[in-house]
Structures are given as C-alpha cells and as structure tokens.
C-alpha cells in the first residue's frame, strides 16, 4: 500500500496552515508556496492517473483499518482523472489570481485556496459516503471564505444566499445519509453496493427514499433545475478566479451522481428501479433549456457566463441520465470540456471588467484596453462553450447526441440540445458583438479619465493556457474518448472495485477470525 493516493489531500492540508502561520504578512512567499504546491499536485495526480490508467484500483486504508470499519480512499480511472483535472485547473486559475492581483484584495486567499483544493481532491478520492459529506463541507467552508474574498455589499449578499443554500443542502445530505444507514447499516460505498442487492422487494421503501434524497443533494451541487437558484448570483458576484475554480465544484456533484448511481444504485437494481432514470433526464433537459435562455436574457456578462454553466451542466446531466456506458463516456468527455471552457470564460470576463473600468453591463461602451487579444480569447471560449465546430464542445455534443439515440426520449433530447445550442449561440454572439464590436462606433467622452491599465501578460498566459487545453482536448479527442470509454467500462463492471475495497485485509480482522 503506497501513500501517494493520500498526498493530493495532505499536501494542501499542510500548505494552508503553513501559509497562514508562517507567511501571513508576506504575499510573495504565499504566492511561491501556493504555486509550488499546485505544481506538486499536478505531478502527484498525473502519477496517480498514469498508475490507474491500466485499470488497476489503488486503495488506501486510513490508519490501516479494514474497509467497512475504517475510511478508505480509492483511486480508479474516474477519480484520478478528476483529481488531475482539478490540479491542472487549479494551477491556471491560481496563475491568473496572482498575475491579476486578486489575491491581494483581501486576506488569506492562498490559504483558503489550498483548503478548497484539499476538499475537492478528497471528495473525488474518498470511498465512503460520510467522508464524502465531510469533504463537501471542507470544500464548502473554504468556498464561503473565497466567495466573499475582497468584500463589497453585493458580494456579501450573494455570499449569504450561497452559504444558506448550501447549509440547507448539507442538512439534506445528512438526512439522506441517516436514512441510508438506517436501511443498510453501512456508509462505505463498496459495502453498500453489496448490501442493497440483499434488500428484498417487500422492504424497499426506506432505501428508495434514501436514494432520492441523495440524488437531490447531488443535484443541488450540480445545479440541476429546479435546484439551480444558488448558482447565478454566487458565480457572478464571486471574484473571477474563485468563480473559475468553482467551475469544478458543480462537477463534484456530477461526479458523485456518476459514482453512486452506477455502483451503489445502478439502474438495473430492483430496489430502486425506475427512480432516478425516470426523473433525471427531464430535469436535465430543463436545465439545459433554462440555462441557455438565461444566456440570452442576461444583462451583464458575468451572469451570462453563470447561466451558460447551468446550461452546460444540463448537457452533462442529460448524458449521465441515460445511464448507459456510451452516455457516461460522453458525459466524462463533456465534463472535462465544460470545466475548462467555463473557467476560461470567467477569467475572460474579468479581463473585460478590468479593460472597461469595472462595468460588465451589456451596453456599448468606448473601446477597452487590450481589446484585440481579449476579444479573440472570448470568441474562442464562446465557440467552445456553445458547441460550434471545430472545438471540443462540438465533439462533446455529437457524442451526447449519439449516446441519446437509444433513449426513449430521443426526440425531446435532440430537440432540446439543438434548440438550446442555437439560443446560446445567439446569446453569446449578441454579447460579444455589443462588448467588442459596437465599442468601435463610440467615441470616448472628452473628459474621459486615463483608460485602465492593460492586464498583465501573465494573465493572458493563464487564460491562454486554459484555451490551449481546450484545443488539445479537441485535437486529442480520439484518445480522450477512448479513455472515457475505458472509465465508463470500469464503472459499469464495479466488481473489481468492490472486491479491492472489501477483501483487502486491514488492521481489524473480523471477530470470528480473532478468536
């Protein structure tokens, strides 16, 4: 048993207190430590992903306690891909936060950032539902601090909404966990997967309630309509690098749905048959439609991007809701694409904000500083987000359309996806032409103050890095779809996962063997 798999959780957990305690008043040291930590995370998670890529499952028993009694971390293809994605995203977003000076506008940005990464990494790696709750809380409490970073009334008000909504979500999560424990007597995912099959058809009421409650909790995290109300305000008001990092947080919800509803409550399980398979697809279609209509209706650029995140989560959830190997594989390809595209867009919105002197309203204003490069990046990211060829959004959309072909709701799915794509293209085109093109026809007023300074070159490197990753995600679409198909195969044959978790001996041998 190697200890590498716990390193993505431990490294930020050590760096964050170090930053608070030792480098409190030295922003330079904080930046160096924080960036070095994220680079280290990329190296570690890339190693883990390479290890898991041959289909082996890495298991780590905390304190060496055996599985149903102790907490386990499990690294299979899916979780290692998600932690690698988190580390890469964390690096570029942190680079932007440092270069744009966001990290100086309030205190403890870097410490909270590391705690946030720790929570996300833990949520992806854990093999225990209660531990998943704890890591959710770790990432949430760090996100509360990051959300109101740099202060301001609007941000604090949006922060109150965000915190209260998530507190309600956490309460619901505990209710779900309580009912699962009452029914099955375990919260270890692998153990649970074995035990729910033993529940007879006459006693399924409790486990059905628990499965739906748990789905609701994850749907809140993934911002699926009608549980999406927390997202637009909080993402629009959050500091730009924080909003960009939050792009992975909705995916934590999607990941949890994929994990739990392929392994613990698979669609063919008799006890929970016809529950999530029935409701998730219509809700996902509604998310896509409402998100993209929001894109068209938004009056500020930051809200427009926030609604496009809801729409892209709708795409992800449509593909997940099919619960077929093809659907999950397409969803995973789209998750990577949507995380990178949403993060890039939030950072570009911040470039626009600083170029226009603080306003993000969709009205024509005098030309902004650094318009050419910002506009180019915006159009590339918008093409990716709306799913136009040639970027990865188009590939992902094709995969999802193809996977939906066998679904009974195929007509609705195709109509919604294609219609929503058109609406979002109109929305983004309108926003882009108002912000970048109409500006040319407006002369700056006579008493205009000096235009704001152009963003630092390093900011463009950070955004350009994310856009380059999107391009790479498109160019290497073949290997990527091959890999997501391999992930999905592993998810739909969970026996190796379960036997690895349950049969690995630990410190505590069962009582009958001890005697």
């Amino acid at each position, binding site marked *: 048993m190697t200890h590498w798999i716990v390193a993505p959780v431990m490294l930020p957990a050590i760096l964050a207190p170090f930053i608070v305690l030792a480098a409190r008043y030295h922003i330079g040291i904080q930046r160096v430590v924080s960036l070095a930590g994220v680079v280290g995370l990329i190296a570690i998670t890339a190693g883990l992903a390479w290890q898991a890529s041959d289909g082996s499952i890495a298991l780590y028993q905390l304190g060496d306690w055996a599985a149903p009694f102790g907490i386990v971390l499990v690294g299979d293809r899916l979780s290692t891909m998600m932690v690698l994605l988190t580390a890469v995203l964390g690096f570029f977003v942190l680079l932007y936060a440092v270069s744009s000076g966001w990290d100086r506008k309030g205190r403890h940005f870097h410490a909270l950032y590391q705690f946030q990464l720790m929570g996300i990494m833990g949520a992806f790696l854990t093999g225990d539902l*209660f531990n998943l709750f*704890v890591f959710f*809380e770790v990432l*949430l*409490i760090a996100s*509360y601090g990051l959300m*109101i970073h740099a*202060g*301001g*009334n*609007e941000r*604090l*008000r949006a*922060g*109150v*909404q965000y*915190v*209260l909504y998530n*507190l*309600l979500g*956490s*309460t619901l999560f*505990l*209710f779900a*966990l*309580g*009912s699962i*424990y*009452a029914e099955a007597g375990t919260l270890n995912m692998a153990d649970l997967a074995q035990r729910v099959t033993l529940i007879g058809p006459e006693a399924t009421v409790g486990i059905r309630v628990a499965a739906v409650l748990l789905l609701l909790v994850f749907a809140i995290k993934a911002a699926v309509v009608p549980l999406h109300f927390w997202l637009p*305000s909080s993402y629009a*008001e959050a500091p730009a690098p924080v909003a960009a990092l939050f792009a992975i947080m909705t995916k934590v919800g999607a990941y949890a749905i994929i994990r739990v509803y392929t392994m613990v409550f698979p669609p063919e399980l008799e006890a929970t048959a016809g529950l999530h398979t029935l409701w998730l697809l219509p809700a996902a279609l509604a998310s896509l439609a409402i998100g993209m209509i929001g894109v068209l209706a938004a*009056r*500020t650029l930051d*809200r427009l991007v926030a609604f496009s995140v809801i729409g892209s989560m709708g795409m992800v959830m449509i593909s997940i809701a099919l619960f077929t190997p093809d659907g999950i594989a397409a969803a995973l390809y789209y998750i990577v694409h949507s995380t990178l595209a949403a993060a890039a867009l939030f950072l570009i919105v911040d470039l626009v904000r600083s170029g226009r002197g603080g*306003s993000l*309203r969709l009205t024509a204003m005098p030309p902004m500083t650094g318009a050419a490069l910002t506009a180019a990046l915006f159009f590339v990211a918008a093409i990716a987000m709306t799913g136009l060829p040639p970027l990865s959004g188009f590939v992902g959309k094709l995969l999802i359309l193809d996977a939906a072909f066998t679904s009974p709701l195929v007509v609705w799915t195709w109509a919604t996806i294609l219609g929503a794509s058109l609406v979002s293209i109109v929305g983004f085109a309108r926003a882009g032409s108002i912000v970048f093109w109409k500006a040319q026809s407006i002369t700056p007023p006579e008493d205009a103050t000096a235009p704001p300074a152009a963003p630092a070159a390093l900011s463009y490197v950070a955004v350009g890095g994310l856009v380059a990753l999107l391009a790479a995600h498109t160019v290497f679409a073949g290997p990527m779809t091959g890999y997501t198909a391999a992930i999905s195969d592993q998810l739909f044959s969970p026996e190796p996962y379960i036997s690895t978790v349950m049969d690995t001996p630990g410190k505590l041998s069962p*009582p009958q063997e001890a005697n």
Partner: protein
Amino acid sequence: MEILVASAIGILTAAGLYLVMRLRTFPVILGISLLTYAVNVFLFASGRLTIGSPGILRSGVDVYADPLPQALVLTAIVISFGMTAVVVMIALGAYLGSDDDHVDDPTEGPEAQPETEERT
C-alpha cells in the same frame, strides 16, 4: 418512544423549514439551526432506538447500542456549529453594509445600481 422521537424530528423540521421561508437572515439562521437539531436527532435514530444497552461488545449481551451514529452526530454537530458561526458573520457583514437583511435578491435587481451611478 418511537412516536416521541419521530414527532420531535417532524416538529423541529417543520418549524425550521417555516423559518427558512421567512427570507430574512435572522429567522433563516434560526430555522437552519432547528433543521440541524432535527437532523442530529434523526442520525441518532438511524442506529435504532435502545435504552440502557452497551455500545461495546461484551459477553452475555444481546442488544447493543450502535456506536457509529453517535460518531456521525458528533461530526455533524461540529460542522453545523462552525457553519452557523460563518453564516452569522457573513450575514452581519451583509446587513451592516447594505442596511437590509433580506436573503433574496432586491426587487430592483443588483444591476440597476451602476446605472444610477452613471447618471449622477
């Protein structure tokens, strides 16, 4: 005892949900506190209700109290306690800054404010 515990959870949850829907920070925070109490009792009950039974394996005992929900409740209490403290601080900051303790968005919309700044 089951009826007593179940109705206590139900009343706490109902009162908590009602307070959450008042949409002003103080009642909402009180409501969330009530909800967390309800969920704590619920977690206790998830290990089955027993009285006076040991939590550790002993010879000659048939009925045990499940020790795991107690550990879960402890974690849940600590987390909800910390979260409530955080939300009280953020809500205080929002209230003192904007002199308004509504949780929902203001009716004129936050984007109306830059416009008035431009006019003046």
